[in-house]
């Protein structure tokens, strides 16, 4: 019978094995305000107005983007730019219940037809268009739509079809028509489960 000492030495040896070279994959990290391109900085300064803004860089395999996150009027804003600072879209977190009734009805019908069960986890309204027009639109309160501002709805939901449960990100237009969907790959959580 091997002594407990020998078991111990083996476990210490294996636990120190990960100290080896690894390959680089896509990642997201904080970036300083100084490193942000001027057009992106101006857009967010005008919109956030002195509020605390956190800047992130998302480094993908083929392209990278810049993202600003802040709170305005008690709502979470996420503004995405390309690497030169050109606006891609503005996403504002909302409650599902606050969506227009006609849209909610269309979305409910979609989920009920497509899945056995569903639960809405996150709802965001996405605005895109020319930066100056989007900015003007967001700075005016009480207006829900404006020509030349493209409005879409990003919904993250847990859905169950047959035996599989998944978390999926859906993108709908204003009439509730599905534009795209993507399954969200869950990050490894072994260290939180065991």
């Amino acid at each position: 019978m091997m002594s407990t000492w020998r078991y111990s030495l083996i476990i210490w040896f294996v636990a120190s094995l990960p100290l080896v070279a690894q390959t680089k994959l896509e990642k997201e990290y904080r970036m300083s305000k100084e490193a942000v391109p001027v057009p992106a900085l101006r857009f967010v300064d005008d919109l956030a107005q002195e509020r605390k803004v956190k800047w992130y860089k998302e480094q993908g395999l083929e392209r990278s983007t810049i993202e600003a996150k802040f709170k305005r009027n008690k709502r979470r804003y996420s503004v995405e730019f390309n690497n030169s600072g050109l606006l891609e879209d503005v996403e504002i977190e909302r409650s599902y219940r606050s969506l227009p009734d006609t849209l909610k009805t269309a979305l409910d019908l979609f989920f009920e037809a497509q899945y056995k069960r569903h639960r809405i986890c996150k709802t965001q309204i996405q605005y895109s268009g020319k930066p100056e027009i989007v900015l003007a639109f967001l700075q005016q309160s009480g207006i829900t739509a404006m020509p030349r501002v493209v409005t879409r709805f990003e919904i993250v939901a847990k859905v169950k079809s047959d035996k599989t449960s998944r978390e999926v990100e859906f993108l709908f237009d204003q009439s509730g028509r599905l534009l795209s969907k993507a399954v969200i790959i869950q990050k490894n959580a072994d260290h939180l489960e065991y």
Partner: protein
Amino acid sequence: MWIGLSLVCWALQAQNGHEFGLMPVVNLNKKLNDNYKLNVKLETRQLLYTQDQFMFEQELVDLAPVVTRRMGVNSRLSGGFLLRRRDRQWITRSIQQFAMVQNLNSFRLGHRFVTDQTFIPDAAVSWRFRYRLSSEFPLSGLTLDPQEFYLKANNEYLYEIQGDTRDLEIRILVFLGYNFANKNKIEVGFDNRFDTFLEGQLESISWFNVTYYISI
């Protein structure tokens, strides 16, 4: 967490000595199919300090295979057993576990509920009911990406029934972790355990822990 810290602060004032040791752990995970995976934990403990003196005593070696079934997107149900070699005795434990993970805006929370039954030769069966709250805070950005460091804090409560005795143990763990590109992780930190809360004098022990999580 705050309830645990308050209880521990109160307990530290009345405790009966402190022990310290080393705990290396290897945690191996193998996906069997879309719904099932196998987790095998190999752990050992060496006691370095007890009763006001330094020593180097091998305390135990554990091997714990557990099969996990995916219940939902972020919830898992597990069952397995533990085989322990301690004081030249073989001790066995059956384990039932439910775990779920919550993805929040800038961190993740893990909830783990466990019941286990420990079978020790010539002793009554020990029944334990456990709840653990784990939190993971990425040190770069909002989510934990490959090749990034993170902080992990755990707070666990264990209620034990063995024969006529009852006990409460509280564990507070703080780790610094690193997430490798291939999903493997290494964590280094302290696993602080405070027991005999309900009966007898409080005992506490701190384990310096190195855990390597391997996904294959």
